[in-house]
């Protein structure tokens, strides 16, 4: 199953196209690091505010930065798909467990975000300067930090197995 997906990926010729420009893959990697920074930096600030740091900040204005965190995620999704087309054997056959954990952590971060939106989001958005977030929001913030740093961890482990 995985093998046929790898074959299909290689047959598209997209990887060959990317590799026909020597600069494209390295620039993609640099963009992947910039996107990672944007995502972790912005989402990390929001998570830390929920955990009780930088409490003088009203929450809703801080949340106005989130679209830039999402932009970081989109950059990384795009460049990540590009990496897959260049090197499908690496991810699917050489380090399948690590790739799986990385995707799992991203998925769980998505579930965590969904839980946030469906539960305490409105309550948290109304937090003014000095207000404390509800316990569930703190748990969600800590989970988010753990998962996104975990995504970086698994991403870096791909190169070392």
């Amino acid at each position, binding site marked *: 199953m995985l093998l046929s997906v790898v074959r299909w990926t290689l047959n598209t010729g997209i990887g060959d196209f990317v590799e026909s420009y020597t600069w494209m893959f*390295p*620039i993609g*990697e*640099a963009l992947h*690091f*910039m996107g*990672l*920074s*944007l*995502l*972790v*930096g*912005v989402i*990390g*600030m929001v998570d*830390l505010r929920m955990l009780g*740091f*930088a*409490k*003088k*900040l*009203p929450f*809703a*204005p*801080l949340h*106005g*930065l989130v679209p*830039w965190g999402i932009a*970081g995620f989109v950059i990384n999704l795009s460049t990540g798909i590009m990496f897959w087309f260049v090197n499908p054997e690496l991810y699917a056959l050489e380090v399948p467990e690590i790739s799986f954990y990385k995707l799992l952590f991203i998925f769980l971060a998505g579930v965590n975000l969904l839980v946030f939106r469906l539960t305490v989001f409105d309550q948290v958005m109304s937090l003014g*300067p000095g207000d404390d977030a509800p316990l569930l929001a703190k748990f969600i913030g800590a989970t988010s930090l753990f998962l996104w*740093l975990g995504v*970086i*961890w698994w*991403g*870096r*482990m791909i*190169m*070392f197995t």
Partner: protein
Amino acid sequence: MDFIAWIQQTELHQWLGESPYWFPYPFIIALHAMGMGVIVGMNVALDLRILGVASAIPLAPLESFFPFMYLGLAVNAVTGLGLMITHPELLLNPVMWVKFACIFLALGSLRLLRARVFRDPKLDPQHIPLGRQVLAGFSIFFWAGAITAGRLTAYIGS
């Protein structure tokens, strides 16, 4: 260069280079990426605020994120030193020095912006002077340069 040969014969260099498992070398690499995410990401978020994004955010309370940025920076100084001991030949790579220069300029910009924006009580948060906004723009540029140069050391110059 003798200095590089000297590093290469230290036990620390051998130990770091022979990592049989995820420790120590991959662990150091992973921490370096996490520290980067914190310092670069938060700094760029502050730059964006200065440039007018999410302008409802009051400026002074954003200073609370500086300890986290400096923690990220400290993690990366230590892990970066570890990476240098593992690959001392990188010191001969001009691209590596472009990275160092970019980091130096980015940190200088951060210091300046801290004093002139986040610690300036007279500043109108809705009308940040153009000079400070230009500096915030350069800050983003320097961090992008540091990341790009860092990645390119794997491809060019050595």
